[in-house]
């Protein structure tokens, strides 16, 4: 690998490459139907292999056999959802006089592209290396992920990370607030089943399950791009909350001191007597009832909100609530708003959740 070290060390920085104004670049798209990739690869069999993998993952792929063509395509068609550059890609084919990047190879092209557009997702392919840490790179591209696996697994994981990163950056402030409030209300709905976890834990877990990309809902929720990122996270939150609830019911554990009790004659009752049943245990129901009364108590002076709240607790639909209590659309919306505000204010004055 000595020649690579010397190439990096002796190649001068790239002042000859004039960075493009970021504003001149076309807007990024995280739309599933327009995922794009630039593949800069000099080896024909690897080019064919990566092209297939990317196309299978839904990317429209542009190909460049050398860094010169890679830079030209990036300038003309970038940014892309992802740019995949082989560490060993040649600088150019032929001997063009107007070569823009006369001395750089893959890793330097990566540095130039990163310089032109710091948010461009890039992956460096270095299949000849055993470990990513062995790949010699200048400091400015040290953070760019390196692909050392020929299999689909690592590439898929890196692509997913880049897509999710773009999606997070693209979330508007109102979408972020929606996610936060949605997670907050879900956590409150879980009650004790949340086991001290808050909305941040729920949202984090939703992202982890997206990133691990497993196909089953128990371990992960792959983002299939047919829905928006917000809709996907909402679905993941619902699924996780439901798993937490189920786990709580199945695995509730208590200290012996919490379970053992004595009657008036000093007789101990064993926890073994508590046989699991499909209905909630009495103590849990009591706690829920107390919390329910506390929430209802917040609206003692607001009859419309109280009616709506009772309807929601019974699981009635909007039209059913409006019809039962004679509420018009506007009054329903206003009462719902008052309820949300009061419940939220309670939390904002208190804990994180």
């Amino acid at each position, binding site marked *: 690998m000595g020649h690579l070290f010397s190439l990096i060390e002796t190649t001068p920085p790239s002042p000859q490459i004039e960075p493009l104004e970021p504003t001149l670049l076309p807007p990024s798209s995280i739309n599933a139907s327009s995922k794009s990739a630039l593949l800069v690869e000099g080896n024909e069999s690897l080019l064919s292999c990566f092209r297939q993998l990317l196309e299978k993952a839904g990317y429209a792929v542009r190909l460049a056999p050398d860094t010169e063509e890679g830079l030209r395509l990036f300038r003309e068609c970038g940014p892309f959802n992802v740019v995949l550059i082989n560490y060993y890609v040649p600088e150019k084919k032929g001997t063009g006089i107007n070569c823009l990047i006369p001395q750089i190879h893959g890793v330097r092209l990566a540095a130039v592209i990163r310089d032109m557009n710091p948010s461009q997702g890039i992956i460096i392919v270095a299949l000849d290396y055993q470990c990513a840490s062995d790949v010699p790179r200048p400091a400015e591209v040290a953070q760019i992920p390196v692909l050392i696996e020929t299999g689909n*697994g690592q590439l898929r994981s890196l692509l997913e990370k880049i897509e999710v*990163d773009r999606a997070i950056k693209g979330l508007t402030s109102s979408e972020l607030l*929606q996610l*936060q*409030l949605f997670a907050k209300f879900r956590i409150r709905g879980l009650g004790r089943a949340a086991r001290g976890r808050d909305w941040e834990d729920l949202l984090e*877990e939703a*992202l982890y399950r997206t990133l*691990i990309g497993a196909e089953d809902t128990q371990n992960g929720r792959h983002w299939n791009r047919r829905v928006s990122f917000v809709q996907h996270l909402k679905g993941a939150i619902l699924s996780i909350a439901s798993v937490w609830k189920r786990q709580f019911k199945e695995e509730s554990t208590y200290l012996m001191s919490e379970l053992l009790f004595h009657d008036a004659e000093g007789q101990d009752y064993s926890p073994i007597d508590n046989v699991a049943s499909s209905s909630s245990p009495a103590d849990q129901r009591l706690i829920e009832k107390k919390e329910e009364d506390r929430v209802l108590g917040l609206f003692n002076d607001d009859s419309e909100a109280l009616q709506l709240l009772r309807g*929601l607790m019974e699981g009635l639909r909007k039209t059913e609530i409006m019809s039962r209590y004679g509420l018009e659309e506007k009054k329903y919306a206003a009462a*719902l708003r008052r309820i949300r505000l009061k419940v939220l204010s309670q939390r904002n004055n208190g804990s994180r959740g």
Partner: protein
Amino acid sequence: MADKTNHDGNLERFMNQLGDSVLALSDGNIRAEVSEAGADPDGEAERTRTVLREALKRLENVNKHLSNFGHTINSNGWHRGRSGYHNACATCGSFVSFIPATGEMRGEALDGRCPRRDECTVRRREASR
């Protein structure tokens, strides 16, 4: 006397309905509500983004660590256990786990380079020729 009404899931249903109703709010309305509830909408929005980005960074850090050691980790192979996520190197079988809340990593895969990596790299190099 104890209330014998079945309250199972009442509060959960109610909170879930409130959560669903948030998704239908317009940009202006949701910002106004957060503000009226006593919080800063921009601050809260960025806080939410940070939660997502930090989670992304933590998992990326785990993958980067393993890649630096030459381990092959199947992204579909993570399993959620009681204390965190678990996986194993597809090449050498070394175990690794990480705790989401802290990003803490554990396992023999973090002890050093993948011992069976050399064989794979040689095979791959020969195959590409």
